[in-house]
């Protein structure tokens, strides 16, 4: 029997001094990455492995007249050439998307976007596979493309989806939320109404690792093993079973180390299916890795929302109502990864952090001749668009009323005593205390001093801007009664086994793409059962070895899978208590849990550690009557609600009046993600999202020319921030726990991506105030800022 060493005082954040639990702790996954020993998809090498390359459409819209694969098939290193027609014979030419649409695996009738998959080659090495693509002859009858979503519903627009029976236009879906009549009444009664059109352009998550897969189909036992760049291995397994007709227990999906996902690795891409088909056809393992251009032109884009926002207020700055019309460009197939009931994702939280009387929004989605996708790039399932809309509108209102943007926000915040707060569009915010978060950001920034400096600089003709944004996120999808993807509920499983010597393994359904699950999930379990995180192995990303769950996206790991990890640890601890009561021969009520051991109340000399209990659970000694041996448990955690993190961001920019180049001088981010598990990892998540914001606000856009050619098809054309465009981020935090999450944690992965773009745009617009600019659309490149300074609206490309 041992006693636990001295425990740190409350609020101690350095875990190096603490045997177990929450706090700063270096990452358990780092040692392999530091040595170049990470194991990513393209690192998988199997004996006899073949390589697959995909022939893609060079045009945006065309009918396929013929495909001649003779020369490619005759290439000495080629093992197979497969077209859509061949797949159609097996019923595999089309597959369901995550939004209940269908998408071509390989085109059979038409190509519908530039970069669409047309045929694939399997060859002995990756260069030969590419060579053979050049030998395939495709004859296209080129059709007019639909490039501008604004004209997709014109009667004269060509119909893209003529594969859908009876389809006579490019309408994808309509969705609305809120109370239209009440909103109209509030607008009619308002003193001030501000209307602003804004575009959230198409961007791309562009993770450093592109998408790929290695499929290995064993013809003898009929088992398919698929290593793939997926953020949702379990969901993918089920969908492969449905699409390919393979029995689900014969499919093992392994998501190895993933080089960043950002939502772009949630959908199933045709390449994965092609790799599976290729392995079945050839009887060999087959690797497919797309290159950067393929990644940018064909995998899940993000945003592409054309919005008209309206905000109504009293003349003294009380916001009354918000409404918006959205035209959503979904590309050629509706491939958005979003819960079924929410075709526009969680855009419904566009009322933001404000207590208002009425709200209404209408989203119309259309098909265009562009790549499918829509929900990616750390967007919290369309909350990026919602937060951008409301935070730009509030700033426009502040301009109109000549109020300080912080003062206007604070005046309209939902108050702490109003939580749980039901918004006018029906979302139940779990908890929040907004003003302290805003004040903390203002304190760190030295807000008043910044405003004084700005006034002085303006006197000198210098262009300095201060941008403010405040966001409320809705993350952790989600409660089963409300949320599913293709009928799969969004709960998460967890299994925990404590071995006889008191070491443990926890198996989780979420997996990491860099978020550090192997560390934080060990910490979550450690905090509950008193075993050091170093002694807890986290298993993830392998469907044969982990319980079912929907995966890592929408900041859902901590809110959902993290909840599961905590609950399974508590279940194990409950069993351990029963065993401990037998060992100490006292009733359970007489036991006190001090992290890591059970003590007899009033007798500090009598205690057993969790390790003692583990050995007893597996040993030969008696256990309390009716109790099975072993010390393990499993749960499936169904969250009661989403969690609602919030944050206050302040950005300071300088604009060169000669070149119109924007420099982000400072960025202050104060996040409230509820209970904090590992502050080092939280800070890292926030930093990454802030850089995303710099990219989207100032640099990144997937643009198209009038023929539908993608103009962002390489990293020379699609600009991503480097270390030189990013400042040294200044972060802070407040803590408002979630009332329903087992430890009060809320999730943080996407907060900064959601909150930073409006802060930066607000700063740029603020800097351009002397030019009478009220709005300019992202990305605020020097040319766009220059246009704005000349009084011209943002160019339409």
């Amino acid at each position, binding site marked *: 029997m041992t006693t636990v060493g001295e425990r740190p005082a409350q609020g101690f954040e350095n875990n190096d001094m603490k045997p177990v639990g929450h706090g700063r702790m*270096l*990452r358990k*996954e*780092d*040692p*392999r*990455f*530091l*040595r*170049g*020993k*990470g*194991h*990513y998809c*393209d*690192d998988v*090498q199997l004996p006899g492995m073949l390589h697959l390359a995909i022939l893609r459409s060079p045009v945006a819209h065309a009918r396929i007249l013929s495909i001649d694969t003779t020369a490619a098939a005759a290439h000495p290193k080629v093992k197979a050439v497969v077209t859509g027609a061949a797949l159609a014979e097996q019923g595999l030419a089309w597959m369901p998307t995550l939004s209940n649409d269908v998408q071509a695996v390989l085109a059979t009738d038409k190509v519908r976007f530039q970069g669409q998959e047309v045929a694939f080659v399997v060859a002995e*090495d*990756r*260069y030969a596979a590419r060579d053979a693509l050049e030998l395939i002859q495709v004859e296209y009858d080129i059709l007019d493309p639909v490039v501008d979503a604004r004209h997709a519903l014109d009667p004269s627009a060509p119909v893209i989806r003529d594969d859908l029976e009876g389809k006579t236009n490019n309408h994808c879906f309509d969705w609305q939320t809120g109370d239209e009549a009440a909103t109209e009444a509030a607008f009619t009664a308002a003193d001030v109404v501000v209307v602003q059109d804004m575009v959230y352009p198409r961007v791309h*998550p*562009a*993770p*450093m*690792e*592109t998408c790929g897969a290695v499929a290995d189909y064993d013809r003898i036992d009929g088992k398919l093993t698929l290593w793939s760049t997926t953020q949702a291995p379990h969901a993918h397994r089920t969908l492969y079973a449905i699409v390919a007709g393979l029995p689900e227990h014969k499919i093992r999906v392994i998501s190895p*180390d*993933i*080089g*960043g996902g*950002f939502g772009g690795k949630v959908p199933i891409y045709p390449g994965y299916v092609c790799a599976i088909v290729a392995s079945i056809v050839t009887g060999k393992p087959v690797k497919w*890795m797309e*290159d*950067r*251009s393929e990644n940018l032109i064909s995998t899940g884009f993000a945003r592409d929302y054309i919005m008209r926002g309206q905000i109504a207020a009293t003349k003294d700055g009380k916001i009354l109502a918000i409404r918006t019309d959205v035209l959503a460009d979904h590309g050629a197939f509706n491939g958005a990864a979003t819960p079924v009931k929410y075709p526009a994702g969680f855009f419904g939280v566009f009322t933001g952090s404000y207590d208002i009387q009425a709200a209404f929004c209408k989203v119309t989605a259309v098909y265009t001749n562009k790549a499918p996708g829509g929900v990616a790039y750390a967007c919290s399932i369309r909350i990026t668009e919602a937060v951008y809309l409301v935070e730009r509108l509030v700033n426009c209102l502040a301009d109109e009323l000549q109020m300080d943007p912080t003062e206007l926000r604070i005046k309209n915040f939902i108050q702490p005593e109003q939580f749980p707060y039901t918004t006018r569009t029906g979302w139940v915010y779990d908890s929040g205390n907004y003003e302290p978060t805003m004040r903390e950001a203002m304190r760190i920034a030295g807000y008043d001093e910044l405003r004084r400096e700005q006034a002085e600089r303006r006197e000198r003709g210098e262009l300095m801007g201060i941008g403010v944004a405040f966001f409320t996120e809705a993350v952790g999808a989600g409660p089963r009664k409300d949320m599913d993807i293709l009928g799969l509920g969004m709960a998460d499983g967890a299994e925990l086994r404590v071995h006889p010597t008191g070491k443990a393994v926890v198996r989780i359904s979420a997996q990491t*793409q*860099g*978020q*550090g699950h192997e560390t934080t999930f060990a910490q979550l379990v450690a905090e509950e059962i008193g075993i050091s995180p170093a002694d807890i192995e986290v298993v993830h990303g392998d469907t044969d070895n982990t319980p079912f769950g929907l995966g890592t996206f929408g900041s859902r790991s901590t809110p959902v899978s993290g909840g599961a990890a905590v609950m399974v640890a508590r279940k194990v601890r409950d069993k351990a208590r029963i065993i401990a009561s037998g060992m100490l021969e006292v009733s359970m009520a007489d036991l006190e849990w001090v992290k890591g051991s059970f003590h007899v109340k009033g007798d500090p000399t009598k205690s057993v550690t969790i390790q003692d209990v583990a050995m007893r659970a597996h040993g030969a000694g008696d256990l309390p009557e009716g109790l099975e041996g072993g010390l393990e448990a499993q749960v499936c955690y169904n969250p009661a609600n989403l969690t609602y993190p919030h944050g206050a961001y302040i950005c300071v920019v300088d604009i060169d009046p000669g070149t119109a180049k924007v420099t982000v001088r400072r960025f202050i981010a104060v996040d409230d993600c509820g209970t904090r598990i590992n502050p*080092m*990892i939280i*800070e*890292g998540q926030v*930093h*990454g*999202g*802030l*850089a*995303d914001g710099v990219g989207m606000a100032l640099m990144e856009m997937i643009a198209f020319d009038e023929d539908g050619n993608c103009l962002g098809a*390489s*990293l*020379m054309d699609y600009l*991503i921030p*480097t*270390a*030189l465009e*990013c400042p*040294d*981020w200044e972060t802070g935090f407040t803590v408002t726990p979630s009332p329903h999450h087992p430890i009060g944690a809320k999730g943080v992965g996407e907060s900064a991506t959601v909150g930073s773009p409006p802060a930066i745009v607000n700063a740029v617009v603020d800097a351009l105030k002397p030019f009478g600019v009220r709005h300019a659309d992202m990305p605020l490149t020097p040319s766009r800022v220059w246009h704005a300074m000349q009084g011209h609206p943002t160019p339409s490309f």
Partner: protein
Amino acid sequence: MQVTMNVNGNEVTGEIEARLLLVHYLRDHLGLTGTHWGCDTSNCGTCVVWMDGEPVKSCTVLAAMAGGRKIRTVEGLEQNGQLDPVQQGFTECHGLQCGFCTPGMMMTARALLDRKPNPSEHEIREAISGQICRCTGYATIVRSIQWAAAHEAASAAEAAVADASVTVDSVGVGGPS
């Protein structure tokens, strides 16, 4: 064609196609998968290795061009079971998340510190500006490199003190022969 090069101190010879990229030679032929393939256009820098001491983007170097040269990859950073201070800095300061850009970042960082042991923040940012990280927002990478610089400086100072004390001791026993 046949190519011979020195990789992390070992001479290797391989039969290759003339068009084979160095990144694919290292990864697919030698199994050194720590060097990654990210963009094909020299923009992302996840493929950075050293060629004769200079950081190069191995996606735009032919394996044939590396013939007769010394290549150092991330697998060659650790020496005698000791992590390089740059590697230590990256874990201490959370300079990596998904780990995909990390090898290239560390190779560039090591080259920078070899030339300039005490770089300014701006010099660090400039040095890694040919490389992209999608996870960290760069601040922690900068701190990681600063950590390595500071610890190398401290080690050098310790070594100098140790050397000095050896000299004193030596003097005490009559001086070195």
